[in-house]
């Protein structure tokens, strides 16, 4: 069996929905805080009650322009919202206020790095719309939508501003297509995070992807029929979904059959897609300009003001930090994969060396986060606190073992590093008088080891160092202890 991409050229496209991090909804003043009691974050507007009217949240426009600018898009000088008409119980008005042929941002790109190559993913459009409510399907064998007896709807999420970012078709990536898809979504996530416009958490659904995939016979230059895979809710799934859909489509095409244009659902557990409802009647959304809203015409100076607030692009920043910190590609990848770039940068800014900052975040702290099943960023310790601990080590006040104890105490909320060191008496014992006594005790208690050392077996010094460390409960500087022992026995 040859590789799929020997026979077919994949073309992918991604539609990413991102919930914006505004305090209030797209068209009303209801709070967007995550996790409220069901139907407690609703009002006549987002419930679509008769007579209610939408009013656009200015910040959502600003955020969308910001995203568009960061994706190198042109910003429309005049555009309108449109109604997308279709009936669904989680959509209170049975139309979604969206944008149709006049999106706010068009024609940009995002560069992604895959296996050392830069691939430019074209951005077709960035537009703004409103999210829907959430349904809970009750009864039936599976608890899923199919076979459910009834559904329960919570409209707290209805009306949350949602930005849709649509790529142009990406072709020519061959076997790399699944990796490119994942790299694009990762890069987009990092970009959005750097813009501070969304918490971009795929697990919580604030970022969601639909993946379009088609195959065309290699060399034919004719694009195949595409499918749209929904429910792709992690970075890993993006890659798996494209791979699985490529394989499935290849099998269909190899058998001489045709690909059906349809929506498919990705299943996290099996890593495969299944067909959604095949639409007996093609959807006719009957888009028309939303008559309850007036056009949006962002003034050029407003757009320029927003442009001036753009942070450094993640790719540029990574390149800069890699050079500043003298890291290898592998080191850099480790940092970004662990989502530690911001933390390390802040720790360095607080005075640590890049090497120390990396060592603690990727080592000890990553291990703690892993044990607690937390994101690194969720640990209850600040970059400044980590920087302070590294400073104490550099100064000789702490050794690595004491530093670990200090971090534990800080993580446990016992105070600032200096307070913890003082309160628990964690500082290295550097008073030679106290050490001299401990060394004398160790020598007296271990005559065999002393004899070995005197016989030239220097390895036995370790026994004496260990005894001193034990006696001082780890607070001695092992190098100093070794020197004192050698002085006495030497």
């Amino acid at each position, binding site marked *: 069996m040859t590789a799929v991409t020997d026979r077919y050229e994949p073309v992918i496209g991604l539609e990413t929905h991102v919930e914006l991090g*505004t*305090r*209030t909804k797209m068209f009303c*003043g*209801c*709070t967007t805080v995550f996790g409220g009691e*069901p*139907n*407690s*974050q*609703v*009002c*006549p507007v987002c*419930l679509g009650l008769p007579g209610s009217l939408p*009013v*656009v*949240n*200015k*910040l*959502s*426009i600003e955020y969308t322009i910001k995203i568009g600018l960061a994706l190198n898009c042109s910003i429309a000088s*005049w555009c*309108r919202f449109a109604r997308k008409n279709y*009936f*669904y*119980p*989680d959509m209170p008005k049975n139309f979604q206020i969206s944008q149709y042929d006049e999106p706010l941002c068009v024609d940009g790109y995002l560069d992604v790095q895959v296996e050392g190559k830069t691939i430019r993913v074209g951005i077709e459009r960035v537009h703004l719309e409103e999210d*829907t409510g959430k*349904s*809970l*399907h*009750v*009864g039936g064998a599976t608890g*899923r*939508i199919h076979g*459910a*007896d*009834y*559904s*329960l*709807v*919570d*409209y707290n999420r209805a009306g949350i501003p949602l930005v849709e970012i649509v790529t142009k078709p990406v072709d020519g990536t061959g076997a790399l297509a699944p990796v490119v898809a994942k790299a694009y979504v990762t890069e987009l996530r990092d970009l959005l995070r750097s813009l501070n416009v969304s918490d971009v958490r795929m697990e919580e659904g604030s970022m969601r992807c639909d993946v379009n995939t088609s195959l065309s016979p290699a060399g034919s230059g004719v694009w195949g029929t595409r499918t749209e895979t*929904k*429910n792709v809710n992690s970075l890993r799934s993006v890659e798996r979904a494209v791979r699985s859909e490529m394989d499935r489509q290849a099998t269909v095409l190899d058998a001489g059959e045709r690909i059906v244009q349809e*929506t498919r*659902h990705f299943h996290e557990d099996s890593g495969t897609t299944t067909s*959604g*409802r095949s639409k007996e*009647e093609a959807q*006719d959304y009957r888009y*028309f*300009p939303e*008559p309850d*809203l*007036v*056009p*949006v*015409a*962002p003034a050029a100076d407003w757009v320029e003001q927003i442009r001036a607030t753009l942070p450094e692009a993640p790719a540029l920043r990574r390149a800069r930090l890699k050079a500043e910190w003298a890291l290898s590609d592998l080191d850099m990848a480790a940092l970004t994969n662990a989502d530690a770039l911001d933390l390390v940068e802040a720790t360095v800014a607080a005075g640590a060396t890049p090497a120390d900052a990396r060592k603690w975040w990727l080592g000890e702290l990553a291990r703690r986060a892993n044990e607690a099943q937390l994101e690194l960023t969720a640990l209850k310790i600040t970059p400044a606190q980590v920087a302070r601990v590294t400073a104490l080590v550099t100064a000789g006040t702490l050794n690595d073992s004491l530093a670990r104890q200090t971090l534990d105490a800080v993580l446990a909320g016992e105070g600032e590093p200096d307070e913890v060191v003082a309160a628990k008496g964690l500082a290295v014992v550097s008073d030679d008088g106290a050490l001299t006594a401990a060394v004398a005790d160790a020598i007296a208690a271990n005559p065999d080891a002393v004899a070995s050392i005197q016989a030239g077996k220097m390895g036995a010094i370790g026994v004496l160092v260990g005894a001193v460390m034990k006696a001082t409960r780890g607070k001695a500087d092992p190098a100093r202890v070794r020197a004192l022992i050698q002085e006495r026995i030497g």
Partner: protein
Amino acid sequence: MSITRDDVAHLARLSRIALTDAELDHLAPQLDQIISAVAQVQEVAADGIPPTSHATGLTNVFREDEPRPCLTAEEALDQAPAVDLQRFRVPRILGTEE
């Protein structure tokens, strides 16, 4: 341009209205008559004329991102035909999970 009974049946499905056969019989010729009449707009020479979706000429009407009080869940659910677990209870939904 004319509209058939089948067209009306399709439009009724799209509009989620379970028209009866008798209504379809009655409505189809009426709609055909209305559509022929409104099709007069096509006589107008309108090349290059911009469409008006709104007469006010307003643009950029926004609100600040300031929270306002919500309804209580009790108020929100008060007029619902059916409620369960503080949610709107609706008949089973066929179709895709969005």
